[in-house]
């Protein structure tokens, strides 16, 4: 069977396959009409091969482009998350610093809230102002007992003129402080109980029988100084002036 334009058609087929191998689909150009002869069937097969290969190549290119885009989006998200993480860490550091400052301030306030005044030889006054809770009670106890242990005192006056409100646990704390002072050999006076506080204590049913109480700091000082001039300086337990 004669094949028309054999040389030219073979050259075109060769060029097409060469472009195909290089992935140069645009260079292949338009498809040509295939002749109805044996070479025509080969030409048609090559044209199909071009179509199939180009489809796969473009689909793969699209997938790669999509993956690249997704990778970029992922990288952007990671960057955003890292920035957020950094901000959170900075905030944490800031909060820690603030918490430390607050703790230091609280300690300073606590220290300032439990001053001990040496008003006379062997007489100290501990003015209490504001609320007395477990923490403050412990601080009062520690400061007072530390002071007595270092330089023994005969008289300890706890002045509560600055205490405007009281509850059962506050009263209990004060009783414990007094007991502890007494165990270390000091006599303890509670002064300056306001009428409102006294009313509350009565209402609460708090027993202050073990502690000597004085109306004011002045009276407590007079009492303690007077007692020191007598042979026995310990006051009667629970004497309301």
């Amino acid at each position: 069977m004669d094949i028309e334009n054999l040389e030219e058609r073979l050259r075109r087929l060769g060029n097409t396959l060469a472009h195909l191998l290089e992935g140069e689909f645009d260079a292949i150009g338009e498809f040509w009409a295939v002749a109805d002869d044996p070479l025509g069937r080969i030409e048609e097969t090559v044209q199909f091969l071009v179509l199939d290969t180009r489809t796969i190549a473009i689909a793969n290119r699209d997938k790669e482009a999509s993956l690249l885009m997704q990778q970029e989006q992922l990288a952007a998200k990671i960057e955003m998350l890292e920035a957020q993480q950094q901000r959170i860490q900075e905030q944490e550091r800031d909060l820690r610093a603030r918490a430390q400052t607050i703790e230091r301030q609280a300690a300073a306030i606590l220290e300032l809230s439990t001053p001990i005044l040496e008003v006379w030889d062997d007489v100290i006054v501990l003015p209490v102002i504001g609320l007395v809770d477990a923490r403050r009670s412990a601080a009062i106890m520690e400061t007072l007992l530390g002071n007595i242990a270092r330089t023994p005192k005969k008289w300890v006056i706890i002045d509560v003129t600055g205490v405007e409100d009281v509850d059962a646990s506050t009263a209990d704390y004060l009783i414990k402080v007094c007991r502890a002072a007494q165990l270390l050999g000091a006599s303890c006076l509670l002064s300056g109980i306001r009428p409102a506080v006294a009313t509350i204590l009565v209402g609460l049913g708090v027993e202050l029988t073990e502690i000597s109480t004085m109306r004011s700091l002045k009276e407590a000082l007079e009492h303690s100084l007077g007692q020191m001039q007598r042979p026995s300086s310990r006051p009667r337990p629970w004497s309301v002036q």
Partner: protein
Amino acid sequence: MTTIAQLNKADALQLERRFQRMLHGAPSLEAAAQRYVTTVYDALSESIVLLRLFATVRYADLPDENRARVLAGCKAIGVGDAVADDTLVLSLLGTVGAEPQWCDRHASANHAVIPLVSRDFVSGIPMISRLLKQLGVELDWIARKDTAIVGKTFGFQSGVFYVADAASWVDSENRKIIGAQDFVAKYGVRTVFGVGGGYVGSPVYTAIISFCRDPIEEEKIERFRSHIDRFKAETSDVVKMGRIFTA
């Protein structure tokens, strides 16, 4: 001519190559779409009642006629204000079927443009809602106004939409997925399926939907996935150049 159920691997490959050659050199996506549906319909008209090819197109890129339709339709249902240049509109680009009026996209009254204007709007059309979901296109991007999502992610995906029995299949809200039940009954439509895929870096997403008169197993539909790859291979240049519609 043959049916989709009878289509063997060699026939399917031959059909793919045939339509791909027909698409070669198409001046626009619309022209390619019409060539595709015509070629495939000619080969499978024993099975196919109606074959359509849609693509998402930005509102601003629509021809005047389609823009007017979108705006009128949206205004009629009170969402006219939601239409913006970036609003994606599922646009009919190619159509062919058993009735002469189905062979011209300009003759389509109700399905020429479907604006993806809001999640609620799309959810209200069971077929489109399911089509997008099954093709891998979740609807959240509509609320986010992130139309770039199509180009960012859909290019990677090519999904399959499948309704085995158009007359009986319902969605999670018990609505018929194929809403046009009079059409289903009149033409004996059984299986409806679609394949879709996007063009990377572009908001264009293409979906081919086929309404068939015979029952088709889902397994057979998988063969149509490669239609999208071949269609995209021949049309990526015109999409890149923005030649969606034939002037």
